[in-house]
């Protein structure tokens, strides 16, 4: 039975573009029935992995199996199992949503009638009824994305590939897409998505693989990863720059870990010591400590770590490409692209 076959099995997967090694011995095993997220900064190799799964790039080394089919040996079988929604919404803007879906359904192999039915089903499923008869050029970013998602679904694939499905979307559209993806996953569709937002992986994924420089640097159920690396961060902004060292000392004393100090913005932050010491509990101790040192606090809070901080913990370098100035890594947190 196919239930026993893993959804994805990558072993030592290597993909090169000329001198650039986009995937460098990437390993991954994922079972069916879950939402898998590949999390990593720009240039980490996420798109390349999705394209490898979609049989669009030829690996230079290693193996990759999709639901048991080898991508190099039997690409046709792989293509029959997958639906791809790439990094950009690949819909024809001069065609209506309905026309786009029907065309893709025909290309998946549906006969005319079945294609019409599949398109109608997907329009219902993704709540696109109000705009289905309009040309896609008039769609909002979120509607376009959902239609693109729909186009990858009309062939009833067993694995849905979503490359950065919400990059460049406003918060409202992002939530629309999240809801759609969650609905599909809950109904049992296998989903592989890539993202550079920790928040997105947090929101959607059961299983997360963190990728950096073409390698998997951490993998596992999200809760497990969070317990290990995704610890809360306490951040303090002092009103008087001179008190920054004192604030840092308090953070260090309470949590037992090395604080990060950013004199430019008068901020010090620290990762909370252990999973058993939740951020809020530590925060009370930090506040008491700061009051004891007469540090006047401009702003203080507990927050989820940024992707940058997770990377720092995991790899010892920031999330930007190696060799780039630190600010390149920071920009990641904004909406890149």
């Amino acid at each position, binding site marked *: 039975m*196919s*239930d026993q076959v893993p959804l994805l099995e990558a072993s030592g997967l290597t993909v090169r573009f000329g001198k650039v090694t986009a995937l460098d011995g990437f390993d991954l095993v994922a*079972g*069916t*029935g*879950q939402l898998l997220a590949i999390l990593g900064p720009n240039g980490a190799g996420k798109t390349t992995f999705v*394209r490898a799964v*979609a*049989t*669009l*790039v*030829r690996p230079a080394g290693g193996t990759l199996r999709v639901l048991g089919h080898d991508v190099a040996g039997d690409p*046709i079988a792989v*293509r*029959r199992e*997958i*639906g*791809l*929604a*790439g*990094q*950009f*919404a*690949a819909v*024809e803007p*001069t*065609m209506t949503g309905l*026309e786009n879906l029907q*065309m*893709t359904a*025909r*290309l*998946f*192999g*549906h006969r005319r009638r*079945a294609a019409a*039915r*599949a398109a109608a*089903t*997907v329009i219902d*499923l993704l709540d696109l009824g109000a705009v289905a008869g309009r*040309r896609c050029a008039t769609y909002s970013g979120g509607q376009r994305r959902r239609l693109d998602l729909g*186009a*990858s*679904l*009309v*062939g*009833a*694939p*067993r694995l849905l*590939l979503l490359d950065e499905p919400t990059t460049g979307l406003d918060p409202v559209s992002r939530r629309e897409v999240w809801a759609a993806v969650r609905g*599909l996953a809950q*109904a*049992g*569709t*296998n989903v592989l998505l890539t993202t550079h937002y920790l928040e997105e992986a947090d929101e959607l994924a059961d299983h997360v693989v963190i990728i950096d420089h073409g390698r998997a640097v951490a993998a596992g159920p999200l809760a497990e990863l969070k317990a290990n690396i995704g610890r809360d961060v306490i951040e303090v902004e002092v009103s008087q720059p001179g008190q920054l060292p004192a604030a840092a000392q308090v953070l260090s004393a309470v949590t037992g870990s090395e604080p990060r100090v950013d004199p430019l913005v008068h901020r010090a932050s620290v990762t909370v010591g252990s999973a058993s010491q939740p951020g809020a509990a530590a925060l009370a101790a930090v506040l008491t400590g700061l009051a004891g040192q007469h540090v006047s606090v401009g702003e203080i809070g507990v927050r989820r770590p940024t992707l940058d901080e997770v990377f720092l913990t995991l790899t010892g370098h920031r999330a930007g490409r190696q060799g780039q100035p630190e600010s390149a890594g920071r920009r990641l947190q904004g909406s890149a692209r």
Partner: protein
Amino acid sequence: MTQPTMTLPPAVIGRPAAPPAALTAAAQVAIRVLRKFVRTPGLWAMGIVQSALFLFAFRYVFGGAAHVPGSSYVDYLVPGYVATIVLFTGGGIAVAVADDRAQGLTDRLLSLPIPRLALVLGRASADFATNVWSILFTAAAGFLFGFRLVDGAAHALGALGLCLVYGVVFTVVFMVIGLFAPNAQAAQGMSMIAFVLAFISSTYVPVATMPGWLQAFARYQPITPMVDAVHAQLAGSTSDVALALAWSAALLLVFTPIAVLRYRRA
């Protein structure tokens, strides 16, 4: 993990029994290209407006100063102009192909269970149809601006046939340009090579009027025999036709496999 792999869409939609037949897939690809063309005035109108404007300028602005032996300038100009119009309007094909790649549409198509050849065939047939549109419109503009068939309509069919053959050839050439261009702007720029070929040929003036060093290039590039063959056909002769067809076949034989191979790994 132990959840069944039954997915929602298969349950509701049902999986297609088999991938589509190659011709069905090619037709779908072609229909999309044609819909885009017909629904974008910038595509179907701009090319022909430009074509008519340039023909107007050559005919009425430069035409008074241009003298060619043995015929009026308009009768010399129009056949070559129609034969080479796809060199100008065909740039749109390269741009569209490059755009599809940049927008991820090509990736989507390549991820579907359809033969690569169906993709190339569908795309090329639709693009050829857009070239036919340019050729027919330009021919009509030629008549409007005073071109007359001196030798009856029968020979005109042979000339038109040649123009359509060139339409096929340059469809594939521009597809290849689009497949190698990193983006739409680059495709546009790379398509300018075609202008050079058209201008330094017998299209607008006889090659004999050019300086000697330029004549060497003009004579031995494919456009000159292609244009000369059209002139010959109109006059009821077949001189240069074999050479023009040989050039066409050679270009197709070189560029078609490049297009197919490049699509495979686009």
